[in-house]
């Protein structure tokens, strides 16, 4: 009698534990005749709201599909995604960004979307940025470009002329920034700066070099040193704040000099114009980045803001494809998302939503249109490129904090970066 009781108790305990382990991780099960797919993405609260709206719209049009949004903030996104993929629990539709693409595609986590989703209306050159080894593993959700920004009112108030951005050089940029800081008595900085690989990519192109070449770093040590030279000159002439102040601002748009009206120029992604303008409350404009004298090309390029991709192990490919197709080609979806994930490259969607875009977005759209003919092709960073931002930032800071010489840092960057790419 007692024995039976013991066994029963044990059995209950085991079952309870098993149930606790099993719960919560079921994806793709069918509930009420609906097929469930999971869609993972990162972002802010406002993006979550927009995404929920888009999902609702999709479900309204496809009543047999149930899309579950799997949302997290950027800081923990890849950590969560990698864990899920490793556990065989990958979301059916995944948002990834350009640096993660080769990483995930190269490790067999993504499905080839060639011919499975309608891409006819998309900008074909940008579409190529979603390809790895000739296969369309991902499709850009929209584009941004890395550009200069200006608060025209501030520039004029400090008695400086607005530049002709088709012709301005880095020297002129430094010169006018320096003058602004001086004239304002230090209350306004001429410009900010950053160590974004996109910035270096543009600069390298102006010297006729590629950031990545055949899965290796294609830049010379001299290019790196010249690039740091610009930063050093900006700091030395007080055209821009010192490295500690810039490290503090980091990529935090709300604290940017332009957003707090303590700077005249800035270098940011075009999609950040909205947030910067909002912070500033004043009118900001986009400009081409300055060039090196005699540069073969301006070096600016379109970068996919992020990509839609599908898990290679999805059990509901048809439904997942339908959802990706909807996100890319449906004017209703475009009308909800607008420029949240970059400006859409789907010509038809763009036409339909143009009037709904905010003035800043329209400005960005016009800017991109006007520079389009000068742009360099978009590149897919090779596997291992996710580390590039860290490696570049670290070595740049070592130089600008005076912890090492540019020569040593350039050698170290090339060695570390190539090691990361060799993976």
């Amino acid at each position, binding site marked *: 009698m*007692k024995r039976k009781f*013991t066994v029963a*108790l*044990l059995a209950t*305990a*085991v079952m*309870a*534990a098993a149930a606790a*382990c099993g719960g919560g991780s079921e994806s793709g099960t069918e509930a009420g005749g609906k097929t469930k797919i999971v869609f993972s993405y990162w972002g802010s609260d406002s993006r979550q709201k927009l995404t929920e709206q888009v999902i609702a719209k999709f479900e309204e049009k496809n009543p047999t599909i149930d899309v579950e949004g799997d949302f997290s903030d950027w*800081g923990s996104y*890849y*950590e969560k995604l*990698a*864990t899920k*993929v*490793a556990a065989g629990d990958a979301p059916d539709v995944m948002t990834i960004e350009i640096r993660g693409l080769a*990483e*995930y595609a190269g*490790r*067999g*986590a993504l499905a080839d979307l060639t011919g499975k989703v309608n891409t006819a209306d998309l900008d074909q050159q940008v579409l190529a940025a979603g390809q790895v080894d000739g296969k369309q593993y991902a499709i850009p959700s929209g584009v941004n470009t890395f550009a200069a920004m200006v608060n025209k009112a501030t520039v004029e108030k400090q008695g400086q002329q607005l530049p002709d951005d088709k012709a301005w050089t880095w020297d002129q940029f430094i010169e006018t920034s320096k003058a602004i800081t001086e004239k304002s008595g230090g209350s306004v900085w001429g410009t900010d700066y950053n160590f974004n690989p996109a910035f270096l990519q543009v600069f390298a192109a102006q010297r006729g070099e590629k950031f990545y070449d055949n899965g290796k770093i294609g830049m010379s040590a001299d290019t790196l040193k010249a690039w740091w030279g610009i930063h050093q000159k900006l700091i030395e002439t007080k055209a821009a704040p010192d*490295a*500690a*102040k810039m*490290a*503090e601002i*980091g990529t935090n748009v709300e604290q940017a000099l332009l957003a707090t009206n303590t700077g005249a120029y800035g270098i940011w992604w075009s999609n950040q114009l909205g947030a910067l303008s909002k912070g500033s409350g004043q009118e900001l404009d986009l400009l081409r980045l300055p060039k090196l004298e005699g540069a073969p090309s301006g070096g600016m390029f379109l970068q996919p803001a992020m990509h839609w991709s599908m898990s290679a192990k999805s059990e509901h490919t048809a439904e997942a494809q339908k959802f990706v197709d909807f996100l890319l080609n449906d004017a209703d979806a475009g009308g909800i998302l607008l420029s949240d994930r970059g400006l859409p490259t789907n010509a038809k969607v763009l036409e339909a939503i143009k009037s709904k875009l905010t003035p800043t977005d329209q400005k960005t759209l016009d800017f991109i249109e006007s520079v389009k003919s000068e742009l360099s092709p978009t590149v897919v960073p090779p596997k291992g490129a*996710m*580390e590039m931002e*860290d490696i570049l*930032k*670290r070595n740049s*800071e*070592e130089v600008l*904090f005076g*912890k090492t010489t540019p020569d040593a840092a350039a050698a170290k960057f090339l060695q570390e970066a190539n090691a*990361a790419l060799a993976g």
Partner: protein
Amino acid sequence: MPHQVSVSPSPKQVRLEPARPVGQHRGTKNAWKRREAGAAYVFLAPWFLGLIAITVGPIVASLYLSFTDYSLLEEAQWVGLDNYARMFTEDDRFLQSLKVTTIYVVVSVPMQLAFALLLALLLDRGLRGLTIYRSVYYLPSLLGGSVAIAILWRKIFGTDGLVNSVLLWFGIEGPGWVTDPDTALGTLILLHVWTFGAPMVIFLAGLRQIPQSYYEAASVDGATKLTQFRHITLPLLTPIIFFNLVLEIIKSFQSFTQSFIVSNGTGGPVDSTLFYTLYLYMKGFKNFEMGYAAAMAWVLLLIIAGLTGVNFLMSKYWVFYGDTK
């Protein structure tokens, strides 16, 4: 061996014993005991399952993974001791993280313990409202490891932060403390010292255990307060100091949140706040080198175990257990 760590060396220890059932005959006692043991295992079963599934299992798995090249997205490949070898021969950042963490532990732990002891001594003088003070000073310990405080720290020590605002009154223009590679680690050390509450409470309990009669006898003999502290308080407190020391060293080697938040997850500027666990995390989740990260975790375990062992060996020479002499 007198190496057992004990917070309360009081002789009046309560012994916990299962209450004996009333009216049982001696003969049935064994059978009853067996049944009782059986029931105990049943009730422990969920905990055992948890231990195996959530603790022991992953530990064993991580040991295996530490000998592999594992990217999380692909199958693990056996590489033998490669990860361990790479750590010490090729990876400058690993050595940097070890250096940063060591400086952090060596500087902050003694400072924190000294501060905790000082406050415990002050609070032990029979202040009115002692419980309130005790709670107030304990608060930082509860909050110190939290994300909110780390963010607050970033603000306080920022270029336009509180510290620099105060310095400005004296005409000093301070640097961006958390973003200057020369001072960033210092702010994290300060944050750790500030969380002195937990050791302080333990010190307070220890101070309470020292019989008042020793002090009375000493003051009759004309000993000053300082002499009393050196010859009565300190020796009798050594087991508590030892306990706090071991605990805090282990804890601070595993610090993560502070550097993760204060440096925005980069260990920067220029790797000056690259804690060991932060680098481990970066390797595992950002660089897809989970095997390497697992190997780092085991090296950390060995380091901590080694240090704790050395600590126990050294304790023979300075820790005084009143009841064993």
